[in-house]
C-alpha cells in the first residue's frame, strides 16, 4: 500500500517538476512548483519525519510560494508568456541533464548500501533538544548563526526592495 502511494507521489512530482520548468506561463509553472513541494512533504511524512514535513509545508509551500506570487504580481509584464528557449540551447540542456542523470544513477545503482534494520521514529522532542544542545553533538552554534542570518536577510530584503524617490536616483 505504501509502495503504491510512494509511486503515485513520485510520478506526480516528476510530472509537475517537468511542467514547472517547461511551461511558459510563469503562474502555472509556479503552481506546479507548489505541488512538487507538497509531494516532498508527503515523502517526509511517509518516512515519519513529521516535523520536517510540517516545516516543508509551512516554509516552502506556504511562505516561499506566496513570496514568489507577490513578486510576480509586482512585475507588470508577467501576463505575456516567457520566451521559448532556442532549439540548440534546449538540445544542449537535454544532453547535459540526461548525461548527468545517467552518471548519477549509474553511481547509485553500483554502490552497495548497507541498510540499517531498525528504524526508530524521530520525535520532535529529540530534534528540539539537539538544536539547543551545546555539547559536542549539539547544534546551538549553527542554530544561532541561522537566526542572525534570517535577521540580516529580513533587513537586507527591506532595504534592497525599498522604493527610493525617483528625483534623487535619477538626479
Amino acid at each position, binding site marked *: 500500500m*505504501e*509502495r503504491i502511494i*510512494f509511486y503515485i507521489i*513520485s510520478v506526480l*512530482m*516528476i510530472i509537475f*517538476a*517537468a511542467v*514547472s*520548468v*517547461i511551461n511558459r506561463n*510563469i503562474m502555472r*509553472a509556479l503552481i506546479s*512548483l507548489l505541488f512538487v513541494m507538497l509531494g*516532498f512533504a508527503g*515523502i517526509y511524512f511517509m*518516512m515519519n*519525519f513529521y516535523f*520536517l514535513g510540517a*516545516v*516543508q509545508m509551512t516554509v*516552502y509551500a506556504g*511562505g*516561499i510560494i506566496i*513570496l*514568489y506570487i507577490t*513578486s510576480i504580481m509586482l*512585475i507588470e*509584464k508577467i501576463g505575456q508568456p*516567457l*520566451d521559448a*528557449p532556442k532549439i540548440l*540551447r534546449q538540445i544542449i540542456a*537535454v544532453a547535459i*541533464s*540526461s548525461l*548527468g*542523470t545517467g552518471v*548519477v*544513477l549509474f553511481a547509485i545503482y553500483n554502490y552497495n*548500501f548497507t*541498510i*540499517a534494520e*531498525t*528504524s*526508530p521514529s*524521530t520525535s520532535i522532542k*529529540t*530534534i528540539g533538544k*539537539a538544536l539547543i544542545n551545546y555539547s559536542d553533538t549539539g547544534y546551538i552554534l549553527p542554530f544561532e548563526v*541561522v537566526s542572525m542570518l*534570517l535577521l*540580516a*536577510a*529580513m533587513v537586507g*530584503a*527591506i532595504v*534592497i*526592495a525599498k*522604493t527610493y524617490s525617483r528625483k534623487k536616483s535619477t538626479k
Partner: protein
Amino acid sequence: MILGVSIYEILTVSTIIFFIGVYGFFTRKNLIAMLMSIELILNSSVLNFVVINKYLFPQSIDGNIFSLFIIAIAAAETALALAIIINLYRLIMSLKTEEIETMKN
C-alpha cells in the same frame, strides 16, 4: 523507512528532479523562472539528506537537522534574490538575462 520502498528508488526520484532543475536553469531566460529551478535543485538535495539519514543511520538525526538549516537558508536566499530582482526590474524594466548587462544604470 517506507515499507517496501528501497533506497534506490527514492534516490532515483531525487536525481531526476535535480536534473530537471538543472535543465530549467539552463533553458530559462527569466530570472524568476531560473530561481524556481534552483528551488527544485535545493529540494532534491534535502530529500537526499533525509533519505540517507533514514535508511543508513536511523539512530542519528544529523540529516534531519541539516535539512532544517537548508530550508532556512533557502528561505533567506529567496527573499533576498526576489528583492534584488524587483529592484532590478524597477531600474531596467526587464527580467531577461540578455538585457541585464550593466551593474550601474
